């Protein structure tokens, strides 16, 4: 009798504790096609996620993929790419590209095979071109995966130099910056889509952000790198630069070099102006400038930024909680808006109908 009583009590405790649990997420269908998307990489604190802020900033939704699908993305969400109807969410650690409807973010497909540490993707017609590091420590297994966007399978791969990062397309050619994965590199690859022929252009160390200016020239931001001695003390630096490349000759035409030890990490382009970020400050120069700026337009620690309509949108990624998102007016340098967005926020995409 006594024993039974004790057991019953223990069981009661168990049941009580267990019944105090939360409910699951409810699925919601919303239209995210007119506003700003912020992708967060995620970390040990949580998986990659996407935040949405409407154009007029009147509404904000977090975890939009989770809300639309009831499941999380993997970690780390490296970048997104967009086609007419779909968005492609690239999670590098999970070797996965998740395909969603661009408006609702409801999943329509995924690519989980033949990708190894995928980083960025360019959409050209019904093909996606995805940069892959392979094993980040290996300098010889890097490739571009060509994805058939009708079947969501990798149809072929094109071998390229170490650490391909960002990728953009112009006139049947792909332009790839090679930041160098876990080591370093100093090339931009040009790939002819018709023939798969790869040509390399040498730039400064660790090229990352790149875009075409209104002249049709390729502008590349190279971060430069810190050189370590055998004992891991700092032995020196290679320079960072913003370089302009004439793509008819693949020659570097202008090279705006940073001071030794300065490593610019972000760059954006809007209305003939280049915006770049260096150590807590954003600077602005004309795309035909012959010298770097001396005075900043905005002072704010950032890990990701985009510029549109004379507004700078930036995020300061936090990997242990939600990150900060800022909007600055570039004429007045005033902060217009700030809010919390995805864990490990890194990239900002403007979507407009």
């Amino acid at each position, binding site marked *: 009798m*006594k*024993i039974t*009583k*004790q*057991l019953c*009590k*223990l069981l*009661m*405790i*168990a049941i*009580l*504790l*267990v*019944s*105090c*649990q*939360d409910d699951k*997420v409810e699925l919601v269908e919303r239209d995210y096609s007119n506003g700003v998307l912020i992708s967060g990489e995620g970390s*040990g*604190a*949580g*998986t990659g996620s996407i935040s949405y802020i409407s154009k007029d900033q009147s509404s904000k939704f*977090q*975890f939009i993929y989770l809300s639309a699908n*009831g*499941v*999380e*993305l*993997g*970690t780390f969400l490296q970048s997104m790419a967009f086609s007419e109807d779909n968005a492609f969410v690239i*999670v590098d*650690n*999970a*070797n*996965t590209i*998740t395909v969603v409807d661009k408006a609702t973010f409801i999943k329509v497909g995924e690519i*989980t095979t033949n990708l190894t540490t995928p980083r960025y993707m360019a959409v050209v017609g019904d093909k996606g071109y995805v940069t892959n590091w392979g*094993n*980040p*420590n*290996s300098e010889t297994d890097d490739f571009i995966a060509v994805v058939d966007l009708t079947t969501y399978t990798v149809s072929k791969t094109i071998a390229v130099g170490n650490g391909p990062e960002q990728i953009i397309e112009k006139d049947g050619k792909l332009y790839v910056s090679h930041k160098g994965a876990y080591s370093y590199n100093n090339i931009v690859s040009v790939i002819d889509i018709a023939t798969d022929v790869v040509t390399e252009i040498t730039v400064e160390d660790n090229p990352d952000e790149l875009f075409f200016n209104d002249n049709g020239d390729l502008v590349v931001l190279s971060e430069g790198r810190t050189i*370590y001695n055998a*004992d*891991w003390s*700092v032995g020196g630096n290679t320079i960072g630069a913003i370089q302009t490349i004439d793509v008819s000759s693949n020659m570097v035409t202008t090279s705006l070099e940073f001071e030794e030890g300065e490593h610019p*990490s972000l760059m954006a382009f809007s209305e003939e102006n280049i915006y770049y970020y260096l*150590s*807590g400050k954003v600077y602005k120069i004309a795309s035909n400038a012959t010298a770097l700026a001396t005075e900043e337009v905005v002072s704010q*620690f*950032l*890990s990701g930024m985009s510029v549109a309509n004379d507004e700078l949108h930036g995020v*300061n*990624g*936090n*990997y*242990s*909680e*939600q990150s900060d998102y800022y909007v600055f007016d570039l004429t007045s340098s005033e902060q217009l808006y700030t809010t*919390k967005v995805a*864990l490990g926020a890194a990239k900002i995409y403007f979507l407009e109908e």
Partner: protein
Amino acid sequence: MKLCMLLFFGCMLCCAVATAQTDTIHRLDEVVVLADRYVKQENIGQKKISVSKLQIEHNNNNPTETLRFNSAIAVRDNGNGGASSARFRGTSASNTAFLWNGININSFGLGQTDLNGISLATADEIIVKSGGGSIKYGSGAIGGTVHINDYLKFKKHQTVELVSSYGSFQTTSNYIAVNLGEQKWSLKLASTYHQSKNDYELIDKRFKDSEGEFYKNENGAYKNYSISLSAGYQFSQKNNLRFYTTSYKGDRLFSGALPNPSAADEKYIDLNQRNLLVWDVENYALHHTLKAAFLTQEYRYFEDKNEEDYDFGNSNTFVFNYDLRYQWSSKTSFNAFVDLQNIQGKTNKIPSHKREQYSLALGLHSEIRANWKYNLEVKKESNSDFKVPIIISLGSEYKWGHHQSILMNISSNYRVPTLNDLYWPGQGNLDLIPETSKQVDVGYQYIGKEFTLKSTFFYIHVLDKIVWTSNGDESRPNVWVPINLEESFHKGLELFASWEHSLGDISSLDVTANYIYTEAVNNETQKQLIFVPKHLFNTTINYRLKKMAVYLQNMLQSKVYTSDDNIEQLSLSGFKLFNLGCKFSLLEQKKSSLYLGMSVKNVFNELYQYSNLRPMPGRNYNINMNYKFN
């Protein structure tokens, strides 16, 4: 939730009251010499529980599971078999000191012990001591200590024990232990072998592959072996020399997370070797203990298991300490403790670095009245890397009647930065100072013949916690660096209850339970620290009837937040787990005994996880046998 809490405490109280009516305990002391006397006998005023060999066996000699189901420690692993860390009372994993026969085995690189990188199978006993009052163990003992002890028996004996189990996911756990001894000498030789394919189904119903099946835990296989030897020679009852040595090799893969577990290809190897020589002499009122130890630790991390390249780190530690106790009167003893350590560590990215530390501790044990004992200890360490504060511990125990006592402990402690914190290339921070803590424990204990209750309220203030953050260095944004950032307050209640009852010779019942309520709050944000459950509860019920024994294990953990801002979407749900097992005695003779057993783990196939998108195994089965002869 409030209502739940109220009901819960109500129930706990009922339990305590209903069973607290019992009598004295009389257990025969065996002639056992522990490698580490301090924690068991000299530490006053703190809650200690011991985990028996049987409990370790019930959890298949898996260190992570053993502590999860039998202590108030929150153990979190990165998927089943992955890196596993233990935290007391919401303090960090590097605030939990693991001691092997009294020697700290936390890694020099990370400052913590990976529970899936050690073996407990050959240990005779594990003592879990909550609270920061064990100042002799110095750095890393802020939250509490876990003692892994080997026994040596100085009496005529000879036993061989063979334990083997096999179960789901091709998991096997085996060990053999040989104990031999006479009045003069004692020997224990043991070896373990564990292996698992660990390819269980990830039972999160939201994720299915293209065929509609659950994904599997890919790249999760592990195997590890260890061999250990303990030997002792007794010159006289009061003079003995002991030697302990153990080697461990662990080889495991790190599994992938949902939604695409096939992406995983990491591999990790642990190689540990430890040696300890102890000389114990009692001479009239003086008791000397001399210890010399040499430990080596190495890890190899393969980012891609198919490649030859790996990152590594290793360390060599020399420890020499001398403990002198002087029995001044029947009531009072004095204690002096000198500890010298020399640690040399490096990784493929950090050149060899040497740390030397010397410490001196002084202690006083005395009593105010026959039923009121206290002890006071002070320790000063001098460390080649930084200034370490003087720490103190004051413990007291007041007894009334035969069974009841009040315990109290006030202490301060610290944790020194690790090799990685200081020297990680491009990121280490040489300006770090040790984390420090102040702690108060007040407890009530009832120790009766059948029923035991150990309870303690705790309050801890941890200052200058070392946190790796991407915003730690203003001049280098987005570079992860460790800084002395956080201040946190931890308060709560720990309970341990056990009840054993025998119904004649034919049957017996025993129940043990642990519960801890933890509020661990970051002082700046006032939010609960990540991965700290407010409620943690486990219980084991053993019932024996003639030649049969059954047990039920249960464990509950409440929701944990995974982000500093405690947002709901970034949290892991609470869960309840039940394991059920039974065993039959097939042979029970003077010379030999044989048990066959089986168990079902996670009986209700509950989805539970300790890390995001890494579900733990669903229902799984195991058969086991234990054969002893002499």
